[in-house]
């Protein structure tokens, strides 16, 4: 409501300003600049994590609401039309990138943690995942080695080398994880089930253990993908913000170099 009120107030002030035969874009442009600088304060708060500057959660809420305000003022400033010059296009694209990535980030951060929690009873931090993956790889290697006969091969080890080794070494099936699909897992476990019919009883037992490790690895990859996605939007949002600030300064300089501010 406060955001909405602020937007209405700005629209009213700008229209009032334009009746004085002044270019309203100067006023809404400065309002936009100040609001964008205000958005940076959240970034400053994050860079000073131990400072007594209030709770970051409150700062984030302000950042989001101020973001909505900035979008409204941006629309007013651009007169709801597409840009004309190259610099304006660059500014426009960067602004849209910042806004869209921010909204995507807002959606991801509010929706993914809950889903992750439902899907994985034991969650890992992002930096723990590579170690956990390596442990699974070592575990499965040890199991497979137990099946190797004196001549150096076995059906299980052949299957492992041809089908599972790559799966255990690196994160796999990222697109499937983004879609939330378990088809690749069903395919691999299906192939293991086929193999189980053809091997000896001790190897069958080992295959059963391998199947559990495959499921664990698939779940681990899911966590890796989704947690990666959770952070990925920042790789767009932050650089685009910095670029936008630089171009905005340039834009202000150009405007004042070539315009008097009178309509």
């Amino acid at each position, binding site marked *: 409501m406060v955001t909405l009120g602020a937007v209405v107030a700005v629209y009213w002030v700008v229209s009032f300003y334009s009746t004085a035969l002044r270019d309203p874009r100067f006023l809404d442009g400065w309002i936009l600049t100040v609001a964008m600088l205000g958005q940076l304060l959240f970034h400053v708060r*994050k860079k*000073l*994590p*131990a400072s*007594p500057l*209030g*709770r*970051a*959660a409150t*700062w*984030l809420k302000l950042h989001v609401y101020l973001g909505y305000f900035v979008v409204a003022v941006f629309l007013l400033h651009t007169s709801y039309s597409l840009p004309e010059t190259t610099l304006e296009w660059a500014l426009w694209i960067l602004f849209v990138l910042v806004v869209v990535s921010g909204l995507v980030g807002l959606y991801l*951060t509010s929706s*993914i*943690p*809950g889903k*992750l*929690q439902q899907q994985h*009873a*034991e*969650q*890992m*931090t*992002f930096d*723990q995942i590579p170690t956990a993956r390596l442990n699974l790889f070592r575990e499965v290697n040890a199991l497979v080695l137990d099946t190797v006969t004196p001549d150096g091969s076995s059906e299980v080890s052949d299957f492992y080398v041809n089908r599972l080794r790559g799966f255990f070494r690196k994160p796999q099936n990222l697109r499937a994880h983004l879609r939330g699909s378990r088809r690749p897992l069903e395919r691999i476990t299906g192939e293991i089930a086929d193999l189980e019919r053809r091997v000896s009883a001790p190897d069958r037992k080992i295959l059963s253990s391998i199947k559990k490790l495959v499921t664990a690895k698939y779940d681990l990859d899911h966590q890796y993908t989704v*947690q990666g996605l*959770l*952070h990925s939007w920042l790789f767009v949002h932050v650089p685009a913000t910095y670029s936008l600030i630089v171009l905005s300064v340039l834009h202000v300089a150009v405007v004042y170099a070539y315009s008097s501010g009178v309509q």
Partner: protein
Amino acid sequence: MAQGNLVRRPQRWDAAFGRDRIHADWVNLILSSQILGDIDPADFPDDLSLADIITNDCAIRWCSRGEIVYAAGSYQTSIFVVLNGGVRVSDEAGSEKTGGRTAMPQLNAWLSPLLKGRLGRAETNVTRFPTVRLGRYEMFGEVEALTRTPRSNTAVADVDRTALLEITWPGARELLHWSDAFRFRVEELYRARSVEVGLKESGLFANVDPDTLVAIAQQCSFERHGSFDWSHLYQRENATGKQSAQMIGQEPMIIEQGHYLEDMFLIRAGFARITETVHDNEFSVGFLESGDVFGLDEIEEGLLFGNHPHAGRGLRSVGYTDLIRIPEHIVGKFILSGPKRRGGGVASAPGQVSHADLSLLDFVVDNRFINATNAMVIDTTRCVGCDDCVRACAAAHDGIPRFVRTGRTHANLMVTSACMHCTDPVCLIDCPTGAIHRDAFSGSVVIDDDTCIGCATCSSACPYNNIQMREVTGPDGAILVDEDGSTHLKATKCDLCAGHSGGPACQRACPHDALTRIDIRDMDILSARQPRV
């Protein structure tokens, strides 16, 4: 051999407790008199003589009349013996909540230096409440020292030039360990005073005059279940990965469900688990902490219908439990007819939770998180793994974070590996120097880097593995190394950002309100953070 700056490792008594070590004349006087009771110096090993303990772990404290020795509610764990003069101990128990962490004890303690030699706040406190005068060679302060609880009363010097022997916890621990005579004396005092103080603090006998209360205390009895040193046993049990039902089975039984209930139990210190047994399956339905009672409803029902009361539920000790048994006839005469009970002010087993939260209760009690006054709990449905909390912690502590963002999880609640500032901080029991201690005002468990000798005793005693040992570096950044090549270590843990304004940085830095510091015993707060189905 590790490479680094060669520096002698700090030793236990490099820094004596007092500003100066106790003079040899005083030590001789203490040894030759009955100040500490019948302590036999021969009971002590050669490398830890009684004289050394007195010299290094004790202090002589001179007080002017009206000077506060300690304030009610403050966290201070020394035992005192009056050497000269006298002390008045105010009987504040039960008059108001003296459970610490309130502004008043802090104010009292802050005022203490200002009031030195004068009458002021301390005098007001002592005149406001009934007092007990303690004279030469009398001991006080042992209840809080043993239970690691805040002071339940205020002690003030009664006359000018009152001399007190202050035995710090590390010294008291050694005396209790090596001398049977000292241990018997302290425990006898503890048991005798604990009953009376416990009855007063409970508020159950608020309408009873002091003489009657003394008579009541004589009819009550004190019991201890479990052991003060519960953490090592718990760590062993925990390492075996036992399920809740197995954990319950290991805990000492205080009273079994269905057994004859002769007395009501008032929990004095520690925790107890209320259990219910259905078809031989025993499960938790609640827990009790200091000040809670068990068996009141059953006794009330028994008296009402003329039956022998039986325990409707079982009670087991979690770690250790000190309790006071209050006989049935006293319950009937003074509590059930008392104003508090009639007004609903005394609840039987208040720690019980709804059936929806039973698994949460198991999680909290099995993992001993009920001990936590300031646990770091992360709501995993909100946490995005940004690690801002870890960065904030690092920024507040010279670049080294003091917790790991992992921990035990129940549904969406993760109790992270950060110091929980326990109600009963077992980590400080065996610290040889007293470096790990409770802040006198806030009660937070903090480590004094200057006196920590890096022995890792606290780290291995912490049941939750929340204390880490870190290597010590010199001003040039090089690691400090002992003559034998081993690196110098210091214990490190969450200190709730002591010295920083605004409270714990981790909580303030979380942009998604996922991380909170909470008193886990407040089950309502905890269950409110769980998603409802």
